[in-house]
């Protein structure tokens, strides 16, 4: 079954029954009749501590398709999750894994995920402890999946969180890399005029994934990735001011390992007061 380009993909509805205990993580996959094959959504539950349930919203993508990251992109929009929570429950923000640069003809630059996207979200029960009885919550997931064409989709899920007597795994399995704080002192940054220079000694390559409110930049398609230890991001003035540099910095080390963590440089430049 192929994803038919249409204005709005059908709403997928299914329930995820979280079966506690055992080695198998609570998970469900559903591709209802008539649903497109480009994206299948599922959820996994974990309980890192008695007072938190972590849900992993997982989007499995057919070959060639991508979903958009939450950072600055030229096109598309990132997936979203709208929750309907029982009384007293609270939800934390979505946590996003490390995206990849996706450069298209015309220097159109997006930051995307291929194959699989996992969004982590902490759910906090009332009174700081999982209730004795099972709890159901609703979620509407929305996304835009693209390859040559783009197709919006959405799914409605019901996730059942088991009562506290039923064990949950302490962590979600098979997670992709998520950003982690970079080691202190690893990165040196300075601004000269409208250029922010980022230097990491002995790096094989550097990549910058901007936040949505970062920049604007002169040419991030060119500047956002550099071989070697120096990355130079040129900012574009708007009304005589320069915007902040905020996002993720990826350091590819000499041995090929990659460290990706938050990076911010928004000190005002003396030549651009208020920047």
């Amino acid at each position, binding site marked *: 079954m192929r994803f038919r380009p249409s*204005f709005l993909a059908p709403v997928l509805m299914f329930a995820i029954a979280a079966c506690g205990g055992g080695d198998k993580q609570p998970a469900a996959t559903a591709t209802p009749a008539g649903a497109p094959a480009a994206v299948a959504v599922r959820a996994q539950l974990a309980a890192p501590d008695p007072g938190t349930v972590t849900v992993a919203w997982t989007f499995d993508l057919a070959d060639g398709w991508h979903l958009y990251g939450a950072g*600055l992109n030229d*096109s598309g929009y990132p997936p979203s999750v709208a929750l309907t929570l029982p009384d007293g429950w609270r939800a934390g923000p979505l946590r996003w894994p490390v995206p990849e640069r996706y450069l*298209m003809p015309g220097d159109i630059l997006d930051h995307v995920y291929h194959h699989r996207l996992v969004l982590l979200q902490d759910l906090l029960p009332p009174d700081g402890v999982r209730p004795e009885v099972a709890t159901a919550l609703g979620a509407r997931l929305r996304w835009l999946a*693209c390859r040559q*064409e783009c*197709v919006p989709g959405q799914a409605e899920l019901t996730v059942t969180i088991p009562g506290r007597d039923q064990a949950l795994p302490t962590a979600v399995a098979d997670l992709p890399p998520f950003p982690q704080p970079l080691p202190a002192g690893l990165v040196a940054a300075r601004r000269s005029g409208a250029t922010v220079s980022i230097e990491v000694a002995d790096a094989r390559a550097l990549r910058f994934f901007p936040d949505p409110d970062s*920049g*604007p930049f002169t040419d991030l398609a060119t500047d956002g990735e550099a071989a070697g230890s120096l990355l130079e991001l040129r900012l574009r003035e708007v009304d005589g001011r320069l915007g902040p540099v905020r996002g993720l910095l990826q350091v590819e080390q000499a041995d090929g390992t990659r460290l990706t963590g938050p990076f911010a440089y928004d000190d005002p430049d003396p030549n651009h007061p*208020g920047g």
Partner: protein
Amino acid sequence: MRILAALAFLLVAATAPAGVVPGDQAPDFTLTDTAGQTHTLSALLADGKTVVLEWFNPDCPFIVKHHKTFKTMNETFAAVQDQGVVWLAVNSNAAGKQGAGLERNQKAVTEYAMPFPLLMDVDGSVGKAYGARTTPHMFVISAKGTVAYAGAIDDDRSADTLGRQNYVAAALSELLAGQPVTTPETKPYGCSVKYAD
């Protein structure tokens, strides 16, 4: 004031500037529409026209949103078409890619009841000259030939919900009244323009 400045950055945040930014001279072009008629920007400007360029892909969900689900483009044009405004849709998608090809676009003109020409930028050169990145990506060109507005059609970046603020309508209203355009640049949204590899 700082809040306004921060808002300005958020509106225009982009990985790269458009090929043109507000205040720039609009690059001249001559393109042929789906009916075989040629359109030259400089000739339109010589006639005193204000020109709106809309980057277009008939099969992009965001174009469907603004041409079919809502009649954003047709209605925005209808409000100003008797005030010397020319609206030109432009398709820069390369042959073999989504939404490309004369036949598909001729059909789209009928399907969407487009009251303005749809120009075929087969080699993408006009799109690249303007820095068109998405469909839609809007440019408003003053009768003096300068870019008065570049960016999104409205402030809702989804593929199914209409925004509350139509930036192009606002820019046209101010421009035609001889006033400065309050918001000359926003971040465009939509599908990527499918340029040739």
